[in-house]
């Protein structure tokens, strides 16, 4: 390469390669930077547009159960409860299935047609768009729940917290399962052999050695599944019942933080209404961010230690 070195040590190049090199380096650097800027901008935008609502309600926003566009009083409690109820119930329901899949593929059938089949099915479950889940739940699951409710003498809404939790749990099965499966299959064989040599059955080795060893990975998988559940919108919106009142029980209709935004944002005209909805979005953003960071942090710790 031809270069002329100037007195101050700057390189002036007549070779186009060096300029191209610099452009390349700058481009990829800026690209990486853009993502950081994007995220910060998202946070700031949400914050700035929440200010009217923050100023109007302050902390009571989180404890007030009145959400009334007419009187312009907004409190997020009904949706907080709706989100938490549906997400945790969904997590509870999905856990046995996710764990079963991860033990199946990670321990009993590490290789072979059966495990490939199950792996494919799990990935397909993750690939189905949430609108499809919601649509199917609305037309198939809701009537079933409605029948059940009539049988046990409860008001047959069909829609509600329980129905939303059910469809949500199906959607998050793959998320918990895939990470758990990874860590379970990575448990070193010499620790398992030690347990077998002491006369343990396979079930004892799995429940008392493998699962405790893989504990942090399983927790990470649960956290990631939780993050997914908290932010899920369409499927929940279609079957949760769209009620802005605090849900009284699992059969009550309700709304989640995501679903109230989906339902009301396009129709909201009053700036306070809009600002309150954006404050909910800010809350969603922060909560999912924290959960994801913790989950990813745990995963990183495990991969480094492995």
């Amino acid at each position, binding site marked *: 390469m031809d270069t002329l070195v100037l007195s101050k040590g700057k390189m002036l190049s007549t070779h186009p390669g060096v300029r191209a090199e610099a452009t390349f380096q700058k481009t990829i650097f800026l690209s990486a930077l853009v993502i950081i800027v994007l995220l910060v901008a998202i946070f700031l935008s949400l914050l700035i547009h929440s200010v009217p609502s923050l100023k109007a309600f302050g902390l009571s926003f989180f404890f007030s159960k009145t959400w009334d566009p007419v009187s312009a009083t907004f409190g997020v409690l009904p949706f907080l409860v709706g989100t938490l109820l549906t997400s945790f119930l969904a997590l509870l329901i999905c856990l046995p299935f996710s764990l079963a899949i991860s033990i199946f593929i990670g321990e009993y059938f590490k290789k072979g047609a059966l495990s490939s089949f199950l792996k494919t099915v799990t990935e397909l479950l993750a690939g189905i768009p949430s609108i499809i889940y919601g649509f199917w739940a609305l037309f198939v699951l809701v009537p079933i729940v409605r029948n059940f409710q009539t049988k046990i003498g409860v008001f047959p809404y069909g829609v509600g917290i329980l129905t939303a939790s059910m469809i949500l749990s199906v959607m998050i099965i793959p998320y918990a399962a895939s990470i758990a499966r990874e860590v379970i299959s990575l448990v070193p064989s010499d620790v398992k052999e030690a347990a077998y*040599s002491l006369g343990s059955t396979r079930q004892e080795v799995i429940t008392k050695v493998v699962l405790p060893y893989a504990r942090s990975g399983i927790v990470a998988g649960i956290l990631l599944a939780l993050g997914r559940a908290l932010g899920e919108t369409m499927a929940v919106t279609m079957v949760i019942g769209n009620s802005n009142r605090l849900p009284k029980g699992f059969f009550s209709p309700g709304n989640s933080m995501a679903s109230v935004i989906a339902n009301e944002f396009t129709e909201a005209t009053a700036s306070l209404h809009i600002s309150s909805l954006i404050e909910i979005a800010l809350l969603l953003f922060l909560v999912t961010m924290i959960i994801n960071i913790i989950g990813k942090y745990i995963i990183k710790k495990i991969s480094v230690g492995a």
Partner: protein
Amino acid sequence: MESAILKTEGLSAYYEDNQVVKNINLSIPEFKITAIMGPSGCGKSTLVRCFNRMHEMVPGARIEGKVFLKEENVYDMESITVRTRIGMVFQRPNPFPMMTIRDNVIAGYILNGIKLNRSKSDDIVKQSLKEAALWDEVKDYLHKRGTFLSGGQQQRLCIARALAVKPDVLLFDEPTSALDPKATSHIEGLMADLKNTVTIILVTHNIAQAGRVSDFIAFLYLGELVEFGPKGRLLTTPKDKRTEEFLTGKFG
């Protein structure tokens, strides 16, 4: 002749179609140290894993023939019972990283769901650690995880763990090959003490170790039992040419 605690009749072991152990008839004398010696790949690890039925856990693995522990056919018993009567210490120390030292020692009970009351478990922990010559070094750290222990200490912890379930036979599968000379001699001395209470079968490719430690030696080559006899006789006046070639270092 000492009484045989473990006997094999026509024992062969296979991985799929590959025969790794060929028709072995062996009698292991009780309360002695029997070394199973031979070059790498001769089938000695596989052989002892047929004793505690760990061999069958490999997909595609099978055996033919019989193995008797005190006149009972090991393959007629439940495998998990066999493993509490024939214990194993592995080549690389493998204490349970999620358990305390104390729990590691009584892991054989914990994992199998056997509840011990506090004083009984304390006794077992203390006795096993003493038998493994580890008690003094860890008695103040029983409630810590064992990860800070040295390789030799970890291996002795594994020995204590195996001893705690009071097996009749203890298999040592090249137990010192991952350890330094000082830890090695520690464990060799330990074995000499242990044989009074438990029969020891030691797998090794190290002739000098077999010479130091064992009472009897079985020499295995390419899956066959070439020769078996008292250590002194086998090492000085081997009957088979292959034994002699191994001892003189013609192959490793």
